């Protein structure tokens, strides 16, 4: 049944099944037609034989007898294997010559004319003709009754042979038609390949309509329906993202209010315990703020956002340097030494510069967050033959090998890790990287300590 899922087997079934049926019906019809022809011709030959016999009846001393030439006799009298049987009767029904027990024509049939009939002779089916021939035309001496019978199986054999000869070329035609469908479908479906390629080469964030140009008109309704779905999907996703973005924006003001008020309170309070509590409150508000920013970034990086497929040549090294520079003040507040590797090389990739900046923001933010005071975080860009690799390395406590895949999941926390978790940081990194045909990979940092996240982008040539 599974095979019927392909268009080719369906078409093949729907073309070959009726053709086969037609072939069988046509063969049966052919057989009937052939039988008719064979009967007509054999009956005529039978009649000729009977008339020939009638012409050879002689009269001698008022006695009728059959004067047959030797070859005719040999033809007629061939015993058990003989094809023909005959009997000649006189005008009064007296026996003249031939097989006396040859069956009579069916009763009631008029004998003034030629009568064909089927019967059985010596236990086998025969076809016979009975004809009345005048003893001598115009003599008024009445008519002879000549009967000639022939084995019926000869006719069946002939009809079958004719049928077979017609059946074979027709069968070949059916086979050729089937083959034509098989290959024709393959050739016809090549038009789908270009559409398939276009869809396959798309990034998952690209929900723009599929190009209908060059597509056969039969496929156009399908493409149109697909494009309609894409546009509805895109609208739905955009609406969802607008909601997330609006919600995130709305959250920012109250979070700002909490932060401002707690900081203010911490300044005014003299009690150390109360100050510590306020400090915790402030830290929590910071996490909330970070999460809100990440939600916004996520909403922008996901499919359906209006700027999700911007691609332009981006010099990765310069962008990384600028972005790292912006994070230095933040790193200093946590006593983390954030730096940029001087050995980084220029590498141009095709990307959305805003998203790559966000990707790096999240990598650096994450590294700073997981590196204890006094630790180092280094950003670098290295290249090989095919790829430009953006790396962020820290000498923090590292991520165990079995956790390295999971940390890219949203809100995943390493067991026993910091209570604030990664939030959406690495999920955003993965989302943006995938949108650019890149995959982030986590390994250990230099000397097996800490964490190194590498994102490889295909080099632009």
């Amino acid at each position, binding site marked *: 049944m599974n095979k019927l899922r392909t268009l080719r087997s369906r078409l093949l079934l729907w073309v070959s099944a009726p053709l086969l049926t037609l072939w069988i019906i046509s063969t049966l019809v052919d057989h009937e037609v052939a039988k008719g022809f064979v009967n007509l011709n054999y009956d005529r030959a039978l009649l000729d034989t009977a008339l020939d016999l009638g012409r050879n009846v002689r009269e001698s001393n008022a006695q009728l007898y059959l004067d047959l030439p030797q070859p005719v006799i040999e033809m007629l009298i061939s015993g058990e294997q003989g094809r023909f049987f005959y009997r000649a009767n006189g005008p009064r029904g007296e026996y003249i010559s031939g097989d006396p027990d040859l069956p009579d024509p069916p009763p009631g049939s008029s004998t003034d004319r030629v009568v064909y009939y089927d019967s059985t002779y010596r236990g086998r089916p025969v076809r016979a003709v009975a004809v009345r021939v005048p003893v001598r035309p115009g003599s008024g001496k009445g008519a002879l009754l000549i009967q000639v019978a022939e084995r019926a199986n000869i006719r069946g054999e002939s009809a079958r042979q004719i049928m077979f000869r017609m059946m074979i070329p027709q069968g070949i035609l059916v086979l050729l038609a089937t083959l034509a469908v098989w290959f024709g479908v393959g050739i016809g479906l090549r038009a789908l390949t270009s559409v398939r390629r276009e869809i396959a080469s798309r990034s998952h964030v690209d929900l723009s309509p599929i190009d209908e140009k060059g597509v056969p008109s039969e496929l156009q309704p399908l493409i149109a329906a697909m494009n309609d779905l894409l546009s509805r999907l895109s609208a739905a996703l955009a609406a969802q993202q607008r909601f997330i973005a609006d919600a995130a924006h709305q959250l920012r003001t109250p*979070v*700002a209010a909490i932060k401002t008020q707690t900081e*203010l309170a911490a300044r005014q309070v003299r009690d150390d315990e109360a100050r510590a509590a306020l400090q915790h409150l402030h830290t929590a508000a910071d996490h909330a703020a970070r999460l809100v920013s990440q939600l916004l970034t996520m909403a922008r990086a996901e499919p359906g956002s209006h700027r999700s497929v911007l691609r332009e040549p981006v010099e990765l090294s310069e962008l990384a340097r600028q972005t790292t520079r912006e994070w*230095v003040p933040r790193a*200093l507040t946590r006593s983390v030494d*954030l730096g940029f*590797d001087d050995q980084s090389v220029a590498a141009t990739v095709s990307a959305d510069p805003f998203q790559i900046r966000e990707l790096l923001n999240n990598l650096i933010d994450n590294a700073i967050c997981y590196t204890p005071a006094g630790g180092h975080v280094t950003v670098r860009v290295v290249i090989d033959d095919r790829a430009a690799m953006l790396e962020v390395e820290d000498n923090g406590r590292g991520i165990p090998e079995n956790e390295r895949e999971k940390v890219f999941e949203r809100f995943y926390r390493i067991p026993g890790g910091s209570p604030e978790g990664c939030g959406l940081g690495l999920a955003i990194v993965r989302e943006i990287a995938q949108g650019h045909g890149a995959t982030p990979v986590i390994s250990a940092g230099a000397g097996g300590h800490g964490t190194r996240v590498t994102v490889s982008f295909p080099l632009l040539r």
Partner: protein
Amino acid sequence: MRLLIVEDHPILADGLINALKGADYAVDHAATGEEADHMLATQNYDAVILDIGLPKLDGYEVLRRMRRKGSKTPVLMLTARDALEDRVKGLDLGADDYLTKPYDLPELEARVRALIRRGQSGGGASLVHGDLTLDTAGRRATIKGAPLDLSARELGVLEVLMLRTGRVVSKEQLAEQLYGWGEEVGANAIEVYVHRLRKKLEAAGVTVRTIRGLGYLLERPAHE
């Protein structure tokens, strides 16, 4: 010093007012764009902290009206949006600085101080960094009033660092600044100037950090 805070969220506004009053500013508050527009028309301010997302008359419109009337009062825009387009729009309309919510209070206070200083000096005659003062016109630096012995190039480096306090300054930026005075300066020379400058500033508790692969950063004074 008189400041106007335009912010519709009452608790945030209250926090800002108290923080800035605590820093000895006179603070007025407007909760709507119309109110802000009216107050700006009747009172002179040294700086305005302006939220973009206001009901009816938004922050952009308040700023547009201010600048149309020829007001040069420095404006710090606050926004819940961090999209680059929004930032550019604010700066194009004549905002002097920009902060995304939620911000750290010290950061906001530092930006407000910088804004007021810029507004007062009208091009900046002197830069202040804790006990350190740089007179850019007279080309001399003092610590608690006592003159600091700095070469012209060291002064040049210090000026760039002070103008970007708390932010990274690359060697290229420093070289460019010195080159502007008609001298070609290599990266090695910059390292030497920074090294000397750092030693001379140490006594005043002013720290110039080296940021790996990126350049230098003048740390914010601890008590600010």
